């Protein structure tokens, strides 16, 4: 069955430090991959998505993600984290007419 694994439940980084959030998926065909962010008390907002082509995808708020087929991964990165990036981040794979989400990673930013 299709699944998405986000191995880190919580991550804490210092403001200005780099960030990488991990995402592994299980899906037989070419995946459609998404990263969403959820700020406290809010709905989900799309950060970026991958359908095909260039495996390095740029998103909003300075985020990028790299699709690695050989590792079944779609890790999210940001070179310098801001305090406003504290939120929960969800990776998802598009399966037919549905999205399958990972459990999420909560990012804490310390000053």
């Amino acid at each position, binding site marked *: 069955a299709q699944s*998405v694994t*986000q191995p880190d*439940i919580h991550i804490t980084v210092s403001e200005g430090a780099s960030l990488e959030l991990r995402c592994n998926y299980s899906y037989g065909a070419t995946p*459609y991959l*998404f990263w*969403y962010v959820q700020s406290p*008390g*809010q*709905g*989900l*907002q*799309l950060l970026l*998505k991958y*359908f095909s082509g260039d495996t390095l995808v740029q998103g909003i708020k300075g985020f990028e993600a790299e699709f690695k087929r050989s590792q079944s991964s779609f890790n999210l990165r940001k070179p310098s984290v801001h305090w406003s990036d504290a939120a929960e981040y*969800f990776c*998802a794979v*598009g*399966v*037919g*007419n*549905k*999205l399958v*989400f*990972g*459990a*999420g990673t909560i990012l804490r930013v310390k000053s």
Partner: protein
Amino acid sequence: DVKVTQSSRYLVKRTGEKVFLECVQDMDHENMFWYRQDPGLGLRLIYFSYDVKMKEKGDIPEGYSVSREKKERFSLILESASTNQTSMYLCASSLDRGRETQYFGPGTRLLVL
């Protein structure tokens, strides 16, 4: 910008009550979705609809039903609320299935006592 609104941000109901959660989107999207969000479990799909009066079960439909009488409105119904349905409920819409971005509402936090 796409706007998805949900009728309530917070809701408190008693066990056995019938509960209606309403969702409205303003971008003429074909598809609408209801998810349930629980800590450590991410988002799980309850039901989705790809057209007016059309619906399909998601991964956890038990205890829920849905209604889509108009394109812009998608309702989630808890026929007889139970305490294990205490959760955050998120509605989303998209132009097409699968590869298109889903746009989310702010969520309804439901407490069943």
